[in-house]
């Protein structure tokens, strides 16, 4: 792999945002994801390559380490910050359509539930997997999910719930979404949700952590 991309991958994996960021100590005063992405583009490396060969693999490593409990939420967030600094340079290419995402992922916390940390983490990691994110926020009604699905045909939907009571609202939302869009791919998650519950309510996939969702989405593209 191009040396520059390899360096960029390491920066994102370990949360080295830019030359000013003191973390990680071993990379102090070195250029970070922000600068390296600029150099890569200047060297003629395409935004697509940067994404596919550096950013996505970096976030995938991060997600895997998180799944294995080798790192915790803060390091995942630091990596995401580094990735975002890289995306500052790449975003214009998405807007012109020159570079394409793998797909669109709509996510929201179900009606009656206000928890958003878990949902935000999932959104962030799926974005790191190369998807465009439509974040509907918390306390999202079934109608809002339906509206978003209509607006973004082909998008995958993810629902999050953190209480057993709001899992019931998840069940209702999934049932209505299914009825409206029979082929709709639906992912569910949140602390009390289980694979068994996912099956019972007719959702397509459950994952206890973001990486499982990223891997599943890969199989769809």
């Amino acid at each position, binding site marked *: 792999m191009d040396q520059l991309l390899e360096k960029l991958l390491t920066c994102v994996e370990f949360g080295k945002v830019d030359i000013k960021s003191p973390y*990680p100590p071993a990379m102090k005063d070195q250029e970070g994801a922000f600068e390296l992405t600029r150099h890569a583009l200047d060297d003629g490396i395409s935004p697509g390559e940067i994404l596919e060969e550096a950013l996505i693999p970096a976030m995938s490593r991060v997600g895997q380490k998180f799944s294995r409990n080798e790192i915790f939420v*803060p390091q995942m*967030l630091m990596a995401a910050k580094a990735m975002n600094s890289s995306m500052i340079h790449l975003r214009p290419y998405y807007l012109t359509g020159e570079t394409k995402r793998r797909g669109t992922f709509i996510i929201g916390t179900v009606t*009656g539930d206000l928890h958003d*940390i878990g949902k935000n983490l999932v959104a962030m990691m799926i974005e790191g997997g190369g998807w465009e994110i439509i974040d509907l926020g918390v306390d999202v009604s079934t109608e809002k999910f339906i509206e978003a699905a209509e607006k973004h045909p082909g998008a995958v939907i993810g629902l999050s719930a953190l*209480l057993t*009571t709001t899992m019931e609202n998840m069940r209702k939302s999934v049932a209505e979404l299914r009825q409206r869009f029979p082929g709709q791919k639906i992912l569910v998650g949140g602390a009390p949700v289980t694979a068994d519950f996912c099956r019972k309510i007719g959702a397509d996939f459950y994952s206890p952590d973001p990486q499982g969702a990223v891997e599943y989405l890969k199989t769809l593209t």
Partner: protein
Amino acid sequence: MGYSPGTAPEPLTDLIAEVSAELLHLREVRAEYIIFERLTCNPGNKSIDIDGVVFDVKPIVFSQIKKSERAALFICTAGPEVGEKSRRTMKEGDLLRGYVYDVIGSEAAENAADRMQEELRLAVAGEGLKITNRFSPGYCGWDVAEQHKLFSFFPDNFCGITLTESALMNPVKSVSGIIGIGRDVEYAPSQCNLCDDKNCIYRGRKAESRKPPIYW
């Protein structure tokens, strides 16, 4: 956050110190309990009757409460500010700082509960009474929907907390529950030993990190 002592990445430890200092001014932390004298425990269906309201607490909680002569129902909150700060900061793009607010908010709610529990212990100790651990709807098999029964005992907006139809407390950084009081009740040093939930992240950890006060 999951780190064992000394292993947290550097910017995080600084950030935690910074955010903790900022939140020291949190004046919205509140905790209240109400003691009820009319308590009937029904071993048949593992339920507890307080003033005519039947709590279906399930076996684990029942086994701890059953010897109680009285019961305290409580709620505690870190207040709305910390949650709002977390949300705002995350929205503005500083995910890490937002997350630190969130975790400190949870910790503040639990700490408020610890202090409330200690106050309750002292309040009844004079009468020769002891207290149990605290138990919350949504834990140890006790259905979170029973929050509605719990809240039926509290005046509106008690501690500034409201309960939504889906049994969610607002502000989010809040904890509610029951504590048994009596001559023969016991405090379990490791609450996790009572519970069979293998997925709980507190499992095993809580006993270590949240050491029971020395007097137990």
